[in-house]
């Protein structure tokens, strides 16, 4: 299992991006690619080749699921875990996102201090044990 290093975060909300940046770069010491839209994500993520993509569900223009769908055409997801971030809590929605290929769902508002540890946990799970 490779060490979790590169994380791409896609969110249209600038402040969320800023907090995630602090939480992930300062606490988790990860390499972060912040994208402000699905479109930007499509342009930059395949090249970046992240270990985890944190994808906001509700975005103007391309929303999270559409962005994921289009990303699949551009890159291999074998070694990349997709985690949706959403304010919706319905368990049926979680199932739905998983059916799209998401590994897990993080609920907003998330715990900024614990985010890095949470991702590390998921990364371990993603790579099996």
């Amino acid at each position, binding site marked *: 299992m490779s060490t979790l290093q590169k994380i791409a975060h896609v969110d249209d909300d600038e402040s*969320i991006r800023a907090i995630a940046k*602090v939480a992930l770069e300062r606490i988790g010491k990860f390499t972060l690619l912040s994208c402000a839209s699905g479109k930007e994500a499509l342009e930059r993520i395949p090249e970046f080749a992240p270990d985890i993509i944190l994808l906001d569900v509700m975005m103007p223009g391309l929303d999270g699921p559409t962005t994921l769908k289009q990303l699949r055409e551009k890159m291999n997801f074998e070694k990349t875990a997709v985690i949706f971030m959403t304010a919706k809590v319905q368990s049926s929605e979680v199932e739905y996102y998983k059916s799209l290929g998401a590994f897990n769902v993080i609920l907003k*508002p998330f715990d900024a201090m614990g985010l890095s540890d949470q991702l590390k946990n998921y990364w371990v799970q993603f790579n099996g044990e």
Partner: protein
Amino acid sequence: MDSNNQHATAQASEEFVRNFLAATPTPALAFFGNSNSIVFNTLAADALNIAHDAQNIDANDLGFTVSNTDEHFPLAASQMPWVRAWRGETFSNVSLKISPSNSSPVVVLCSGKLMRHPESQLPYVAFVTLADVTPQFDKEMLQEKNQQHLQMLLAGTNTGTWEWNIQTGEMQFSAQWSALLGYSKAELSEFNFDSWRDLHHPDDLPKVSETIRAHLQGTEPLFSTISRIKHKDGHWVWLQVHGRIYRRDDKNQPLLLAGIHLDVSDVRAYEKQAKVSESYMAAVVNSSANVAIIATDTEGVITIFNPGAQMLLGYTEEEIIGKHTPAILHLESEVVKRSIQLSEQEGKEITGFDVFVYDARRGNAETRAWTYIDKQGEHLSVSLTVSSLLDDSGNIIGFLGIAIDETAQRKAEEQAQVAVQRFTGAFESTAVGMALVSLEGRWMVVNDALCQMLGYTREELLASDFQTITHPDDLENDLALLTKLLAGDVQNYSMHKRYYRKDGQLIQALLWVAIVRDRNGAPIHFVSQIQNITEEYLARQRLESSETRLRGLFDLSPIGIILMDFQTGKAIEANRAVIAPTGYSDEEFFQITDREITPREYAPAMSQAIDQLRNTGRYEAFEKEHIRKDGSRYPVLAQGILMKEPSGRLVVWSLVEDISERKRLDRIKNEFVSTVSHELRTPLTSISGALSLIVGGVLGEVPSEILDMLKIAAKSSERLSLLVNDLLDMDKLLAGKMDVKLELLDLQPVINEAVSAMAAFGSSHGVKIINTGKLHKQIRTDKGRLLQILNNLLSNACKHSKPGGQVTLHCEAGPEDSVIINIIDNGQGIPDEFRSRIFQKFAQADATDTSDTQGTGLGLAICKELTERLGGVIGYESEEGQGSHFWIRLPRAETEFNFEERTPRVLHVEDDSDFARLVALQVSNWIDMDLASDLSTAFEKIRLNHYDLILLDLFLPDGHGESLWETIHLAQPDVPIVILSGHEVPRKLADNVAAVLHKDESTLSRVVSTLHSIFKMGEAQE
């Protein structure tokens, strides 16, 4: 003529004729037709006053005329008897009158025959004999004249005659008789005795037959009677008959009976009239029960004593007839007194009976007051009128006294006097205004009440009339009614009218008017009764206007109001707000029933509402839909009450609110809340994230003062996040969007997780959470939701505990593999006034007391919703100041309770164990009855067990049953509660339980039937 004559020669023949004539013993003549000459014998010559020597008289110049006996005209020459004989005619006894020129006429009977010449057979001579019958004829003439006289006489007296041949039965009737009875002579010729008898009136026939028989037998010299005989046209004619046998046969047997009939109809009519008058008189005398009539003869001996007199004086007719009047009937002192008076007046002594009839004898009827003495010796005042009775000739034949009992009249007058006094008293003392009003409307007599009512003095009022003080708008109507009253169209009338008081104030009055008339029916004055109904009128006005207002409220209410017949479900009244949304016209709407406009799937809810109505008199608000005329639906909220109309009909008043708009607004609101909450999360994420990073020291050291502030901000943003999460949860729960994913779980790890998750929170409140009674058991539940519930309950318990307190979490096994989780604190407890709202949204015990507890107010509402979603039950027990005990009971698996498959479980909360045992015995075969003899046991049992019904006594050794009711009502509202108590049940309780039974009124069978109907209801709804 013998043969010798036939052989006579012609020469000798004339001689022979003369000799033959001479020898003929009767007057005779011979006529020689050839020479037209006549030869008379001497007898004939004498009779006809012809000279004896006259021979061969020329037949054309006889010196006398011949005529028929009843005529004066002479016969024509050809009709002369001798000419007839010459022509060959043989005749005998033809009566003729021969009138000689110088003597009186002679009546002769002529017989004639022709003699022919013996050889030539030619007519030779005609012989005619003339028998002088003048004396007989004259006699007959006389008789006939007499008869004619009689006839005329009879005709003049309407008398008919008849003759009856007793032996043959034949009858002869005179023309007069036939005229009397309308028959023609021909018709009468058919009559015999039998048919004549049949004409008699059946009532008279026996008398007629008897009279005839008596006469024929000789006991009566005359057959004489009066009878009715039928006129041909049908009416009866009264006839007086006189008849007599006038001929007997050789054996002296009666042969002929002749009679006359005299028409006496007029006489009979007169007699009848007299008889009628007489019977009238008798009837009057006899029937005058109120008037005593006493008749006497001229000497004062009583001859008539009528029933009125009998009644008045008490004597029977037999006792008094023949007695002397003054002696027996009168007060002697009065008679003496009058006697002295009269004697002085008339200057002669008048005594005894004469005292009474002195004036009457002079033709004056005298009326005078007397005192009678009746049989019992009682004195009676009478007014006695005495008059004389006269016969046809004007002679006094007796006296008639008519006495009227004045005693009764006097009493009546006294009574009338009393009545008048009473009336006057009533008139003056009554509270109702009364007046006598003249025909012109002037007040004639008024009472005090009226004066007070109208504010005038009596004098002022009497100087006025009713028209003056009547409200002008009412006057016309009043006068019209008065006119009707005057005309006799109505006996009285009443009307509502207005009067002006003297002070100008208007009063409302009820007027009643009758009319007083004299004996002839002429109006005298009016009697008016006037009642002041101003107060009532105003009250009614107020009532009416209040009714109008209510009616307006009903009509205009935006909430539908409908009155239905409880039996039929048909609408009796419904306002616009009910009908308009349905799309039906008013007529159509009142033809359909509540069930018809409610979709079928609401039938269970409807029958539940009906049961509620039946059991509690009201049904709680529930939502259903109505079907519009076009088939579309809209939601309504219905609630109502049952009422009994005075007629006994049961009706339901329902408020039916069209909640389409509310539903739409709810949806918009929910969507809004949902959207807003959602939109809040993103900035909240940023705020709390940013703050937590700074406070967490990720970005380096922060001066401690700033850090304190940032910590406050971080904590507040966390609370805000929780609130937003709760709101979203609640929203989802209410919208049914909350997904529950049940899975088989070990209970204890979840409990441990909850306790450890809340430990920090607890310590922040200085409260320790301990977990007792570990239960290793699997349950089927949603872990996340269960944690949410436990977090809520634990955080509540911590928040409401005093610092240093303890919150206990205790798990135990429940019935049917269920699990009960108890969370017990010993904090301030739940205030009584808050209990009813405890599971409601945004409920918090006291707004002023939240500073140290902090909560969203949604926690318990979410807990209840979630617990139920997990198939569990939540409940609590609490006493203010003594802490709270919340519990949830979760099923091991989804359990659907089904009465059909399971014996219903009932908890009977009752401290009288004997009574409880009796009840349990009654239902032991179909109900599993559990007993709790005090409240704490009951709470324990409810927590541990599921019951399908609670039978609750209110006064229990450790408290009032109301607190138990509250717990059940709030936590398990579907579990029916039946109060079975000997005490009064508070209204709030009675309205919110399935049934209330009073121990003293209810028999055990009533309890059983109530339980039965409740469980039957459960079955019906499955």
